[in-house]
């Protein structure tokens, strides 16, 4: 699934593993040509819509790094496994990445349940884990530092989103959430912050995923007479809601996460359905060129939250390995904060950072999804949010706040 340059070695490895061969040490030697990084992301199942985009973003950075000479004098290759959006399958896949491929890092888990299931396997095997999963409980796991998450926690996100909604004149906000770990904490936080900004949360409901229509849920929300809706779900359900809201004639504002309303999703919906909807995603400061560089690298106009976060994981991982001069999970744990924060020179891409490190400079990576400064438990300290508004099926940049 990774680059084809190593397919023969992978072939060997595959045959060896299928046969349950005892020749493992020889295989490990054979692999020493490339530096292998693990990717565990949903390629099938409910997250199958998001995993491939994250993977592409990581592959783009890897290609750029390889073109610039690689890492520790070696080319990097990504070993990709499908987590099937299922914790049981994900644990087996993580075992394979750790015990067979011996990767120092696993990047890309999406569902919170998958991350929570995989995390113990990772920290016990001293393997680093990077994720977008939003459940507040994840960074509270006893992970000993072997985990970072680029997704802002619900407390931070909901507060900023509440401020934004109030700032554009929303007075009566209703929150529709998919059944997920982030639903309740987000609702609670919105209810706290909105009144401070002269607005209020007039109601909220949690809906089930995988329904073909949400007409009745929307009727229930609209009976409360909201002037603004916070749609806290994923693309498959948010698109159904967008259609149903249009049909219901709702003309108030709608805010949703950029991963639920991506540019691909805009293409799949009639333009009048998405007109005027707001999207938000964590972001670096407005003067940071990291986002622009990601746009260029990925060849798409509006990389969403997951694409920018995936960009940042692999960049952080490459820079940390270069800084530590060692590709192990423990080295990642010990050194990630030495390149992600502090008073070093600000760098916005992995390649620039590698160059600066080679020159012996201290660096501070500022990512496409935010400044990427981490607390001791692996949460991001703070970030701004990028807001966009849909006009004629295109995103219009509004502000970063």
């Amino acid at each position, binding site marked *: 699934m990774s680059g084809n340059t190593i397919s023969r070695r992978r072939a060997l490895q595959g045959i060896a593993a299928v046969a349950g061969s005892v020749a493992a040490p020889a295989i490990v030697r054979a692999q020493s040509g490339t530096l292998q990084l693990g990717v565990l992301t949903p390629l099938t199942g409910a997250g199958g819509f998001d995993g491939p985009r994250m993977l592409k973003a990581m592959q783009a950075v890897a290609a750029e790094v390889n073109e610039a000479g690689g890492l520790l004098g070696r080319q990097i290759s990504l070993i990709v496994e499908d987590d099937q959006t299922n914790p049981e399958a994900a644990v087996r896949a993580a075992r394979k990445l750790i015990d*067979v491929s011996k990767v120092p890092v696993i990047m890309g888990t999406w569902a919170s349940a998958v991350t929570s299931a995989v995390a113990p396997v990772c920290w016990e095997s001293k393997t680093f884990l990077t994720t977008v999963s939003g459940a507040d409980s994840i960074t509270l796991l006893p992970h000993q530092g072997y985990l970072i998450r680029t997704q802002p926690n619900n407390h931070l996100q909901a507060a900023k989103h509440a401020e934004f909604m109030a700032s554009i004149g929303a007075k009566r906000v209703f929150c529709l959430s998919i059944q997920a770990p982030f639903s309740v904490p987000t609702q609670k936080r919105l209810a706290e912050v909105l009144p401070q900004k002269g607005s209020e949360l007039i109601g909220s409901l949690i809906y089930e995923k995988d329904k073909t229509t949400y007409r009745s849920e929307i009727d229930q929300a609209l009976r409360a007479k909201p002037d603004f809706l916070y749609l806290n779900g994923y693309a498959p359900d948010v698109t159904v809601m967008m259609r149903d809201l249009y049909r219901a004639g709702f003309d108030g504002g709608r805010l949703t996460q950029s991963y639920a309303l991506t540019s691909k999703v805009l293409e799949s919906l009639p333009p009048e359905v998405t007109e005027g909807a707001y999207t938000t995603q964590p972001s670096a400061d407005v003067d940071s060129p990291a986002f622009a560089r990601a746009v260029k690298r990925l060849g798409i106009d509006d990389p969403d939250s997951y694409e920018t976060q995936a960009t940042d994981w692999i960049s952080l991982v490459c820079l940390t390995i270069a800084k530590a001069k060692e590709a192990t999970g423990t080295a990642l744990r010990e050194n990630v904060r030495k390149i992600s924060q502090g008073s070093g020179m600000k760098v916005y891409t992995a390649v620039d950072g590698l160059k600066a490190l080679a020159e012996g400079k201290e660096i501070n990576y500022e990512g496409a999804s935010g400044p990427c400064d981490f607390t001791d438990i692996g949460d991001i300290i703070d970030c701004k949010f990028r807001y966009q508004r849909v006009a004629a099926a295109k995103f219009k940049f509004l502000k970063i706040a």
Partner: protein
Amino acid sequence: MENYLVAMGVSAGIFALMALGLNVIWGMAGLINLGLVGFFAVGAYVSALLTIKLQLPIAAGILAGTGVAAAVGAIVALVTVRLKGDYLAIVTLGFAETVRIAASNEISLTNGTDGLSGIARPFGADLTPVQFNLFYLCLVAALVTVLFVLIDRLSHSPFARVLRAIREDEQVAAVAGKHVLLFKIKAFAFGSAALGLAGALYGHYTSFIAPDIFVPLLTLYIKLALLVGGVGNTWGAVVGAIVVVTFLESTRFITPLIPGLSAVQGAALREFLISVSLIVILRFRSQGILPEARSHPVVPEVEAQAERVRV
């Protein structure tokens, strides 16, 4: 590599426990149960919650999980006693989905979709992760052996003969003076106990459970394991579980060998290969790798197989 194989051995062992349980319900009594993950989930949640919230010892939690799953199995059997075939299938499937929905929504008890982390591991503190893995393989293997012997002895007992009689023809069994309902409930409860035991063991192994684990796909794997191994055959349950895990895992190494595929195509191909291999096995060995041994004194083999078709 070794550690990986050990971990997959644990997975296969847990699958085998489930397949053994299913073998009693389906293989012997001929009752269809598409809600395996429901009972698996009950065992996992009961044991995890008792050890977390009441600080019970792990062994007590596992026993309780097994017991509660058995009780729930008995209730489900009682409620669905009049249902047959596909109707029983859809109700049991619905039962499992309901368990999952309840676990997602009763946040105060189950922690909702966040799941329960930090479930205690037996000797978790005294063993290194690698040692723990090995220890757990031994534990699961021992339990599979115990259950295997139990069920194997059971399958030669008068109890199992009555179950098979019920499976082949309920009315004849009833006319012969057997309390059909009671036998069905006992079989369902016993099988569910094995499923609950597997669930409890799973929770204490990975130390994390969440509603997302208990999806119908897992039920399908177990069904396939038993079908592939041979329904009604105790060895078949174990062999089938190993075959299924082998397929799940070995395909992981095959798809990267094919050049020019995107990651999604590779993942799609892997799932395709898994399902097609199982279809092929089922197709050419529809009685499974190890068919049920016949102990019928009168009905000859061919007819007996035709009879099984009606299960």
